């Protein structure tokens, strides 16, 4: 029976994980993780501006030859449906409609070589799951979101601002269940899950006393709670972990709901001039809320153009027309956010990432050398404006923008071909590289892992994500 003791020791060493299953506190960091405390950090906060639905690179940050609409044109000749415009960077052009962002590109890095995963027949939410968690769905454990890893490892910057805030997404849309599957802290424990603000204009509702309850009543309710516990017989039962943690969490919530910092959630406090600059719609106001929260010490925020099947960036038809609106929605607020953060000095310690789960193309569904089942009929000859645009899902060349927090200023990374298929031809970068670079900037060790059901589970699959030093100063 000699192995018994070793088995026990093994359990002690490796199965803190089981704690997650027991639901008793968060799991412990795996012993394989190296110590990160001495790592130099370049960022404290992260804002992800997510272009949900698949943003075509050729129509936004990586335009190709302009092929204007004419009745009877061949589908295969269509590359970019918009003319190009200059940016702050020499020789680098954007698609028309992104003039404001073009004017701040000296402050960040343009990535033109992101390659999304091959997940077969395309479902947006599976790619989004992969984008946000770095793991391909499904997985045999519940995988934490990027924001949850950061919340767990770095904690709240300001104790009354939840460390992972998600702005702009409702779960009542089609594929809502699939969206929920990755908006979770998974095995890290619900403490690190997203604080959801589906509508930025009602952000304050989530952090103030319940509707119809003024501060005074809220305070006396809290006092009553404490007095009632003190008066009750439960004290005789002695200390109990569950009891104490319940009381502690209620106290924390009370402090947050009653704190002056909660005003950061209230967009009506923003000066009108500034409010108007951001107010292009829900997404624009989300950017404004993100700015206010980062100024108060938010750790990780996602602001998304809300995902809803066949809406927003998910153009299965009328791509050209609809992209005009999408650009109007994002151009001013993204640029304004960068300018405001830069002016206040916050940009130096805040990474802002603009990204989408994949790109789109007129003809290719998937990757040129690994095409998958088409979802949209594309006529060979385009007679109607509604067929003019990028209506298929393209994974082999997507654009991203990264600003601040140690990311190079005025830099371009990677390249796609100028002719169809406009795929990545230089410096390909994948999701594990993006995640690892963000973790690195925050000082989270690249081999950080937790023992889950006795197996090491890393921030990036097998801990293989490499920091992309080409993006960093």
């Amino acid at each position, binding site marked *: 029976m*000699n192995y018994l003791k*070793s*088995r*026990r*020791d*093994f*359990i002690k*060493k*490796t*199965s803190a994980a*089981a*704690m997650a*299953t*027991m*639901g*008793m*506190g968060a799991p412990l960091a795996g*012993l*394989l993780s*190296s110590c990160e405390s001495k790592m130099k950090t370049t960022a404290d906060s992260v804002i992800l501006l997510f272009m949900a639905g698949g943003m075509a690179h050729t129509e936004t940050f990586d335009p190709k030859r302009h092929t204007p609409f004419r009745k009877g044109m061949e589908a295969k000749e269509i590359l970019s449906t918009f003319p190009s415009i200059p940016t702050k960077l020499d020789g680098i052009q954007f698609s028309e409609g992104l003039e404001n962002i073009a004017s701040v590109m000296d402050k960040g890095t343009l990535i033109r070589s992101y390659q999304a995963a091959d*997940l*077969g*027949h*395309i479902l947006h939410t599976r790619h989004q799951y992969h984008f946000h968690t770095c793991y391909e769905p*499904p997985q*045999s*454990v*519940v995988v934490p979101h990027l924001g949850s890893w950061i919340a767990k490892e770095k904690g709240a910057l300001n104790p009354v601002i*939840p460390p992972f805030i998600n702005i702009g997404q409702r779960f009542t849309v*089609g594929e809502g*269940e*699939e969206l929920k599957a990755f908006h979770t802290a998974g095995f890290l424990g*619900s*403490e690190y899950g997203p604080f959801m603000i589906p509508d930025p204009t009602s952000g304050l509702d989530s952090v103030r006393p*319940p509707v119809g*309850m003024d501060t005074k009543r809220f305070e006396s*309710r809290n006092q*009553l709670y404490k007095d*009632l516990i003190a*008066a*009750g017989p*439960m004290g005789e*039962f*002695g*200390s109990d*972990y*569950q*009891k104490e943690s*319940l009381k502690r*969490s*209620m106290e*924390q*919530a009370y402090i947050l*709901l009653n704190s002056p910092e909660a005003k950061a959630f209230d967009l009506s406090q923003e000066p009108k001039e500034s409010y108007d600059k951001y107010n292009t719609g829900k997404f624009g106001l989300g950017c404004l809320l993100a700015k206010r929260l980062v100024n108060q010490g938010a750790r990780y925020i996602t602001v998304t153009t809300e995902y809803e099947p066949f809406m927003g960036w998910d153009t299965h038809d009328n791509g050209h027309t609809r992209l005009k609106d999408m650009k109007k929605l994002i151009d001013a607020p993204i640029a304004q956010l960068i300018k405001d953060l830069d002016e206040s000095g916050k940009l130096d310690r805040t990474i802002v990432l603009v990204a989408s789960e994949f790109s789109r193309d007129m003809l290719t569904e998937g990757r040129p050398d690994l095409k998958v089942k088409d979802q949209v009929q594309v006529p060979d000859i385009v007679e109607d404006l509604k067929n003019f645009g990028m209506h298929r899902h393209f994974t082999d060349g997507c654009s991203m923008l990264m600003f601040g927090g140690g990311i190079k200023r005025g830099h371009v990374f990677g390249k796609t071909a100028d002719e169809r298929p406009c795929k990545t031809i230089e410096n390909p970068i994948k999701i594990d590289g993006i995640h690892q670079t963000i973790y690195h900037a925050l000082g989270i060790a690249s*081999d950080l892992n937790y023992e889950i*059901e*006795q*197996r*090491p589970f890393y921030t990036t699959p*097998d801990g293989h994500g490499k920091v992309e030093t080409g993006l960093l100063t």
Partner: protein
Amino acid sequence: MRKAINLMVYFGATSVFSSVIFGLLLAENEGTAGSTLDIHKYIGIAAAALSIALIYFVRKAQSHPSAIKIYRSLLVITAVDVGFAGHYGASLTHGESFLTETLPFQTDEEAPESITINLASFQNELSSEQEVQLVTNVRSVFAHNCYKCHSGAKIEGDLRLDEKEFIFAGGESGPIFEAGNPDNSDLIRRISLSKNHKDVMPSKGKLLTKEEIQLLTIWVEKGAPWPEKADNFSVYRVAELAPRKPNLPPVKSGLENPIDRLVNQYFEKNSIEWTELVDDRTFLRRAYLDIVGLIPSPSDLEEFETDPDPNKRSLWVERLLNQTDDYSQHWLTFWNDALRNDYTGTGYITGGRFAITDWIYTSLRYNKPYDLFVKELLSPTDKSKGFIEGIRWRGTVNASQRTEMQAAQNVGQVILGLNLKCASCHDSFISDWKLEESYAFANIFADSTLEISRCEKPTGKMAQTKILWEDLGEIDSLATKAEKLQQLADQLVQPKNGRLSRTIVNRIWKQMMGRGIVEPVDEMDNEPWSQDLLDWLASDFTENGYDIKRLIKQIATSKIYQSQSIPVPSSDFLLAEDYQFEGMVRRRMTAEQFSDAVSLLAAPLFDSIEVKFKPYELIPEATQNREFTRASLVANNEFLKALGRPTREIVSTSRDSQASLLQALELSNGDKLNSALQKGAVTWIETYPDSEKLTRELFAKAVLREPNSKEMELAMKTFGEKPAAPEVQDFLWALFLSPEFQMIY
């Protein structure tokens, strides 16, 4: 001579000073800590200060002879101080016992951390039995420290340590040892290096202990013996598959229930005292929550308390078990979690997932014997196929998550209490399960033979078709899927598969007592705190028709179930390796129990749109006797999620009951609870316009007792003479969120 001494003082002082500086830097870099280090540090700093004083006085003594006395005493103090600093420093690098360990009278009483084997027994000529023992220990050291990077799962430096052949072949830089010559063995050299050395192994995580290094050294020294039969022994704990029925200890007064007799045996062995039986009120609340998931009403309590039957607790347990719809709606939650069945969720939109709620509910309602329950899950009808069909995503998925492998993993986890997730991708490094065994098991669920993929790369090898244990019989690999599943179902529910019953009785025990006899409940190879109790319960369950209600009754009528509950002192208490069972542990209500209590006492939390399952539409005789919808019947929502209801994307056999800020926010200002309390408050003041009466009723209904004088005073202060809705709403809130309300104690 004096000159030389003075020079030595200067030299000594300077080197003490520089040692201190380097010492501080070293401590900073190595990250060592602890009281020995602190002592070493402070004595060292004192030595530096003393040295400076020494230099001062040695100079002064040259011109003022009177200073010479101070100089001399200082010199003595400094010498002693440096001596101590040196000692503690050595303790840091060589271990605390570096001075005493070589003394002849020093005995090594403390068992080494991870090896209980007596190293000394390997010093002489080894018998073949001892050789096997030695190798098993060596393999255990490799398994627990090295497999993560050097086994089939991950092969760093071209080196695998999981099989004899690979160990002897070595890695990219050749053999790792020379048999008989530890001094010329890279293996021994590298595991013996210090933490910061670039060659040290393991390069990540904890270094090997002294005993582990010694063990490997002895093995190499002895010529690295590896008798053939050594491979028959597992380095992991493997539970017996066969059932076992231990003899019951003799009956003692008051301990007739077999559970109590076995618990008493355990208590005696571990010197644990029985606690007193709880009062009727505590018992009734416990039994209600555990059996039907609801809190009893004051009239239930009164009826129970005044029941003169000495056997009343047992009768009332029976009565609760017979409230079939209440019972079924409570246990539905448990099975929905375990079988990852839900009303909404991923997969349903593309037709890639099938709900089995009707089947689960019917099974619970008619108390389907567990063997039949398992058979119907494994060899399913249309109504029960959802569990093994899994979730089929649009697009391509990893080989290790194909639906056949999902079935293998989930059947393994839920029905058999074992973890095949690791072995779905490569040979497991946490158990003996091999990739081929997982595939052979998964192949039972496949329409056509699966090709084995190792770490997502197809190997070209086709899977066999086998149950995980040969003892349970064979599966015909040429049979159709339906036939294979029928064979699997028949073979897994044979009484000789003791694992089936052990796994389920352990789960039910956990539901009732707060912690399994084995934990985690999905790792049935782990050591139970009482093998006898587990084995007896399992055998008894098998012999008595796999009757779940009977099992619940057996537990609920035991004395141990009726004894005082045990507080949980810390978050890791329940999984501590030296966990000792003392009784039922205190728990928090689940999301469903809490919601149902609030719905009952204030106003229904869920409206008709949220209801996804209506038992009375499925079963005509099902009673719809509650004025609110039970939380187990509604789609998951933010409120339930915040309180720990899982999304059921994967199997979930333990709830996350951790209190968290996000949960507290939901409870503090979430709309769901707030509006139920708002409505409830109005009903309360309409029914009880008098403050005192209202308070008494509220306490009676919510916590089944009278308010004490302080609580009454507090209520009167809050309500004034006539209660108004806002104050009552806040009082309900405070009472419902109090630990007394939320705990099962």
